């Protein structure tokens, strides 16, 4: 049984302090698109300087280091219970080293556990796969952006939406408008269509692991992703809600089967500080990736 504790600490440090290149490049392109001298351009300039400073100093990009969401893919025969222990230990070490702010508080009393562990905290999803190595994905999801997430049960009493691509489009546009700049725009939207209330949102969050420039395997969803990105940016909400050309850096949609009675559209809002990293651990060889 391998011990991956120190590796996971590296993964946490990388996610918290070193923004992935595809996100940084998208922020640079967004800055170039804004008119010089505007508040939107200034905000993106500040964001990019902050990203560079965090990388150089090894300090968290944002003081809200968020909920740590782990996704683990393990080969047959590796104990998930042991991996869970190691991940929790790694989270404690990363908190001591200030890669993470102590961010786990008891639901009702608000008492901080002090080390980022608690009831189902951090969140760890496991899946056994056919490869002979371990892969660990990590998403650090800040509270401000998480509060901008939404879930629609269609048809909705709130607005007319049909149980098809048009309805999905309406729901996502509505959520993006409601979020304004509050989730620290320009953000990335993960969307889950179908499933139940839990699996639909889980699918939405999993989309956030996709590279910004990828193509959806479903051609109709791929077209909708591109259309929604364009249309949300047409809303003009802009960076931090100051008004401007870029409100989202990407929209990523996943689908799953549902029961005939339900049609859920779930939207997970990720802030510009899209702290996601993936690590593969094959014997002694460790590789860090920006996305999966």
């Amino acid at each position: 049984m391998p011990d991956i504790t120190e590796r996971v600490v590296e993964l946490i440090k990388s996610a918290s302090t070193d923004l992935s290149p595809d996100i940084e490049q998208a922020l640079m392109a967004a800055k170039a698109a804004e008119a010089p001298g505007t508040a939107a351009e200034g905000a993106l300039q500040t964001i990019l300087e902050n990203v560079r400073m965090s990388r150089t100093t090894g300090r968290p990009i944002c003081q809200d280091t968020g909920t740590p969401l782990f996704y683990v893919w393990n080969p047959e025969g590796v104990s998930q219970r042991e991996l869970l222990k190691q991940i929790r230990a790694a989270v404690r070490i990363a908190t001591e080293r200030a890669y993470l702010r102590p961010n786990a508080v008891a639901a009702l009393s608000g008492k901080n556990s002090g080390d980022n562990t608690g009831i189902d905290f951090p969140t760890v999803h496991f899946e056994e796969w056919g490869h002979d190595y371990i892969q660990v994905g990590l998403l650090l999801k800040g509270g401000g952006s998480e509060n901008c997430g939404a879930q629609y049960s269609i048809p909705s009493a709130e607005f007319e939406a049909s149980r098809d691509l048009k309805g999905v489009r309406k729901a996502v546009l509505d959520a993006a408008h409601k979020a304004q700049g509050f989730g620290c725009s320009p953000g990335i939207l993960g969307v889950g269509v179908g499933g139940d209330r839990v699996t639909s949102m889980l699918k939405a969050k999993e989309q956030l692991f996709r590279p910004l420039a990828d193509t959806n395997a479903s051609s109709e969803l791929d077209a909708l992703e591109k259309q929604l990105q364009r249309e949300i940016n047409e809303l003009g909400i802009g960076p931090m809600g100051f008004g401007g050309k870029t409100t989202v850096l990407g929209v990523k949609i996943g689908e799953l089967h549902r029961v005939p009675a339900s049609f859920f559209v779930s939207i997970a809002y990720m802030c510009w500080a899209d702290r996601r990293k993936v690590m593969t651990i094959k014997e002694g060889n460790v590789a860090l990736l920006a996305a999966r």
Partner: protein
Amino acid sequence: MSTRLTIPISEKDIRALHIGDQVLLSGTIFTGRDAAHKYMVETFIKNKCPSGERALYDVLKTGLKGGVIYHCGPVVRKREDGEYQFVAAGPTTSIREEPYQAAVIEHFGLRGVIGKGGMSEKTLAACQKHGAVYLHAIGGAATLIAGSVKQVVAVHKLDFGVPEAFWQIRVEDFPCVVTMDAHGQSLHEKVAADSKRKLAALLGK
């Protein structure tokens, strides 16, 4: 492109600002969030200041006159020489202070409030009446903002906890954007209304 503001700020300089203006702020400011705002209103504004709280009241009265309060729960490190250092200091969501902010602006003669997400009608009206602005910091830019904090002058009410205490800090070129000005304008209201119109047009297609 940015306007430089130094504390104490005059009413004239505040009235010259408009929504969308970029500002670089320098001088000594105070952090204050939920516990601090509740404390100020209940201890100093609604009631007569108890003698035990007099010293802090005098510090705030002097420091906030023409000054600025920052909605922020910082990550602070105590250095080996015993001095405090700001490690990460991005803005927190301001709307939670809406019930208190107008009274604090009026009572202390604040010229600015820094935070994120904007505030509502009561604060906007207080800004117009008393000559103050809401300054939006860049959410998530925690390292950069911590870098603009040149000195921790003092900490008050540390018993509220590190994020909730009043941190009296000297900042240089703290970058923000005016999103609520002293003329009754709110960039948040404007962007929300404009984007709502565009949304209606998109859905009508």
